[in-house]
């Protein structure tokens, strides 16, 4: 283990992951809809109409991140694709944030689930964040499994992931 690495207990890393997820989800959803706000109370269960699930796996961690959507109107196909793209971008944002502290994972393509009154449940401890705006509601649910002890380390400048929105022309 590098001398500058900071070992985390599972509880510590789970809390850290949940904080990164909240940061990434808030940024992503408020960019999509500036009126979006995180709710302190969970939304009613059984109201999900579509959900996109993205799996991820790395040396230290694996799990999944899902973005579920519910609104009063049936989503058009493009809006369903948008839910998948949100899950994809959210998993990517968390990946880049974890990459800054030396924790990596690879992301699978998103899977879209359609239905009425879906609910999401995981065997693993899960993090759930609910967001609402006047026109839509989103739930972000993530399940995390720690495969081996995680140590956070400062990543060298040349290894730092690019930030969202960054553009580089070679």
């Amino acid at each position, binding site marked *: 283990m590098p001398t500058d690495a900071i070992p985390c207990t599972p509880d510590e890393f789970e809390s850290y992951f949940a904080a990164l997820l909240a940061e990434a989800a808030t940024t*992503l959803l408020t*960019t999509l809809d500036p009126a979006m706000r995180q709710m302190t109370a969970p939304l009613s269960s059984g109201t999900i109409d579509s959900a996109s699930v993205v799996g991820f796996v790395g040396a230290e961690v694996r799990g999944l991140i899902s973005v579920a959507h519910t609104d009063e109107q049936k989503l058009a*196909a*493009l809006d369903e*694709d*948008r839910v*998948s*793209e949100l899950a*994809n*971008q959210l*998993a*990517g*944002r968390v*990946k*880049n944030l974890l*990459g800054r502290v030396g924790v*990596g994972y690879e*992301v699978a*393509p998103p899977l879209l689930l359609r239905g009425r009154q879906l609910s999401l449940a995981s065997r693993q401890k899960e993090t759930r964040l609910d967001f609402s705006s006047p026109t839509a509601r989103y739930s972000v649910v993530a399940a995390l499994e720690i495969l081996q002890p995680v140590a956070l380390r400062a990543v060298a400048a*040349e*290894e*730092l*992931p*690019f*930030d*969202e*929105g*960054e*553009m*580089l*022309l*070679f």
Partner: protein
Amino acid sequence: MSKKLILVIDDSATIRSEVAAALGEFEILQATNGLEGAELIEARKDIELAICDINMPKMTGIEMLERIQGKAANTGLKIVMLTTEGQPAIIKRARELGANGWIVKPFNPVQLLAAARKLTAA
């Protein structure tokens, strides 16, 4: 004057739609994965710029770059990767394979249009 042609390669219809909207002054061709993108690039001489995702079914963006190396029908083709990936190692790999740029999603439409104009300038 006919519009310059840009190929957008992404499995997300949302992204293809948003890129097309940002690049309204161009003609846009779409592909839903790296394999479709590679086939179009190999077959057509009129594509000036390809904007390509990394993580796609059937063929990833990196695999597409590996396939089209030296095989693009249009040797003046520019390629920009548009992806959630931000790791320097994969960016370096794409550059080695001939990519001309990298954008981490979500993209800024004004920046994307400026990049497209710059890369397709005669």
